[in-house]
């Protein structure tokens, strides 16, 4: 009896909360409607007539964060780095990745096929994150899903055939972080050598800080040339990090 009362109370509470949230959604504007705040940012972030203060970005997230998109990426990556380091510390000593049977032929073939699709969509989501929704973290977690599919359906021992083991994954992860760090240092060093001002993670040239990564490649907008390499570095870092975590957890599972 008491259980029933508790469950009815719980369901009632959830229904109440979701109806309140639904009531809040009634202010949801139609597709194609632009709020005044949105108009302000559209005017200032992707306005070809007003290039002195623009951020060259049609994507709202990049447009709002402007130069700070780099800091966003950097700290996301650093938090993730610390998390992976803590997990890897518990699992010292790298076990051999042995090759075994895996699942049936149908599953293995379709997993190989779908691996290509998923890696492609991960790169697409990362590189085109300047225009379409996406970003380094999203692309990285999609890349990790591809490797996890390989581990689950083929076997752990298939990874060395793809030139990947725990050591190499760690190296790739650190290379992604080094890419971000290196791109941060370049404008500062260059500008100190040439005697002008610069910011770390500077994206677009400013009136008092002339160094900047290229904004356009031919006619295609890169929305600040720093964004794409930084997002690629974060994608590699996050994807390899999740792969290492999954590998180590299943290895530990096997020893018990």
């Amino acid at each position, binding site marked *: 009896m008491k259980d029933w009362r508790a469950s009815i109370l719980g369901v009632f509470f959830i229904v109440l909360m979701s109806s309140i949230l639904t009531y809040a*959604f*009634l202010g949801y504007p139609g597709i194609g409607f632009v709020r005044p705040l949105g108009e302000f940012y559209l005017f200032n972030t992707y306005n070809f007539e007003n290039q002195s203060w623009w951020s060259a970005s049609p994507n709202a*997230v990049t447009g709002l964060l402007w130069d700070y998109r780099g800091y966003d990426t950097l700290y996301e990556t650093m938090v993730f780095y610390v998390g992976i380091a803590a997990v890897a510390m518990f699992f010292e000593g790298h076990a051999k990745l042995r090759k075994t049977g895996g699942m049936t032929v149908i599953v293995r073939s379709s997993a190989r096929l779908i691996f290509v699709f998923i890696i492609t969509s991960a790169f697409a989501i990362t590189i085109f994150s300047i225009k379409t929704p996406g970003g380094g973290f*999203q692309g990285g*977690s*999609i890349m990790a899903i591809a490797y996890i599919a390989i581990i689950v359906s083929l076997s752990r021992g298939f990874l060395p055939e793809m030139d990947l083991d725990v050591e190499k994954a760690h190296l790739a992860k650190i290379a992604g972080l080094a890419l971000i760090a290196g791109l941060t240092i370049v404008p500062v060093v260059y500008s100190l050598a040439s005697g002008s001002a610069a910011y770390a993670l500077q994206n677009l040239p400013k009136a008092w800080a002339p160094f900047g990564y290229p904004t356009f490649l031919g006619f295609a907008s890169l929305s600040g040339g720093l964004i794409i390499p930084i997002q690629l570095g974060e994608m590699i870092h996050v994807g390899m990090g999740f792969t290492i975590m*999954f590998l180590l957890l299943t290895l530990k599972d096997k020893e018990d």
Partner: protein
Amino acid sequence: MIEMIELIIDLLLAFCVVLTAAIVYTKDLLLAIVLSGAEGVLVATVFYLLLAPDIALVQVAAGVGISTAFFIVGLRKIGRREE
């Protein structure tokens, strides 16, 4: 059209309530993981319909794809049935 999208959002949230109740009261942990994957997919669609595709991508990739894998690895340690 907007009324239809609001209707879809309401419907998906109602499904989420049903699934949450099922997750809380089931004794089979594998079933709970499957149901929470389903709920993640529904929530991702709600994010999408509210025009937040970035958040929906994170929800699909990390919240549904990766955390389900980790939960199933962990399930082997603690056993499938809850006492």
